[in-house]
């Protein structure tokens, strides 16, 4: 509540201050010369002041921003602005350079050069958050055989993480009474937590909670035997 109120206040106060960056869809045409333009120009456009103009770097130390493709090949978008002058980076390895008094300049750097410059930071990136689902035998906190194997895979993933945060949320199908399902869902989550702890995961890093039959993976009528809803969902980060 209080946090919400503070957030609302902060937002209310801060929105007006920096002219709300209307970085939105409006600009790209002007900021994005390459897409439809003469195809082969991967080199940094030789501007009037080439890289040798070092004495002119009076104001700003050199800055570089590069957009990377994610593991699935998706490329996001970053807008770089200096005093109203901006470029949009929305292609893999599209880069912005700033030096001295210049505005952001669009350049395209070769991937190996980017990887080399940023290796220590990229290596230090935390492991991506992951999620797992484990399934149970009807009316019990016993894992199915497949899920036992999955638990093993999860443990080896956890061992890669020096300080994992693990949230285990238990669920049931809609067979039986709600109160009993609340208890069973929590029991499932706690059973998985106990299994992790017995394998060396610190108990303080695992939270267990139950959601009863409230969040079925597969919505059903009441009183339906649905194996896919008898599960725990585990978030690891």
């Amino acid at each position, binding site marked *: 509540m209080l946090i919400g109120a503070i*957030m609302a206040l902060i*937002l209310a106060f801060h929105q007006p201050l920096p002219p709300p960056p209307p970085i939105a869809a409006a600009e790209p045409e002007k900021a994005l010369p390459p897409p439809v333009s003469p195809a082969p120009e991967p080199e940094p456009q030789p501007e009037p002041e080439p890289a040798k103009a070092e004495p002119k770097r009076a104001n700003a130390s050199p800055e570089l921003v*590069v957009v*990377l493709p994610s593991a699935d090949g998706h490329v996001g978008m*970053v*807008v770089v602005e200096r005093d109203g002058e901006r470029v949009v980076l929305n292609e893999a390895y599209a880069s912005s350079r700033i030096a001295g008094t210049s505005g952001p300049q669009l350049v395209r750097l070769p991937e190996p050069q980017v990887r080399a410059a940023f290796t220590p*930071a990229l290596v230090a990136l935390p492991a991506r958050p992951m999620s797992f689902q484990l399934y149970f035998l009807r009316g019990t906190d016993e894992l199915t055989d497949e899920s036992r194997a999955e638990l093993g895979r999860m443990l080896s993933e956890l061992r890669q993480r020096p300080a994992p*945060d693990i949230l285990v949320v238990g669920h049931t199908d809609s067979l039986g009474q709600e109160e009993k399902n609340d208890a069973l869902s929590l029991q499932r989550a706690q059973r998985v937590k106990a299994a992790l702890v017995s394998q060396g995961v610190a108990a303080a890093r695992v939270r267990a909670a139950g959601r009863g039959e409230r969040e079925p993976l597969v919505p059903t009528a009441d009183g339906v035997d649905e194996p896919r809803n008898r599960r725990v969902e585990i978030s690891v980060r």
Partner: protein
Amino acid sequence: MRWILAIAAAAFTVASYADVGQIKSVRGTVHIEREGQQLAAAPGMGVRQSDVLVTGADGAVGVTFADNSLLSAGPKSVLAIDRYSFDSTTHAGQFDASLRQGTLAVVSGKIVKQTPGAMRVRTPASIMGVRGTEFVVQVDEPAK
């Protein structure tokens, strides 16, 4: 007993209120500047709004935030967490960070997914609006 529970609850609330992320990886020399103090960074340590992460010449650090944003800094870096808010129910939030020098790698999280542009990264000369997802930033050391 009730009294102890109340204190435990208060302590938990304070901790969960203050921590917006957690250090996941540390290499070499890394510390957090917080309220005038220098704290040696270690995996599992909480990161709070207004913290400044500082890495040595051999240092690197990685942090996972509440919305699953991932940030890491390479050697000789100064990275400030200026503002962070995240509502885990609506995924609304705001994430402002500043790289004063060094290198930074970012994988944006649920805040940006919910509200493209709600994450901003400042450098001495520029400001970045983040609409997703992965990017890196380098700020050279100021010339002496």
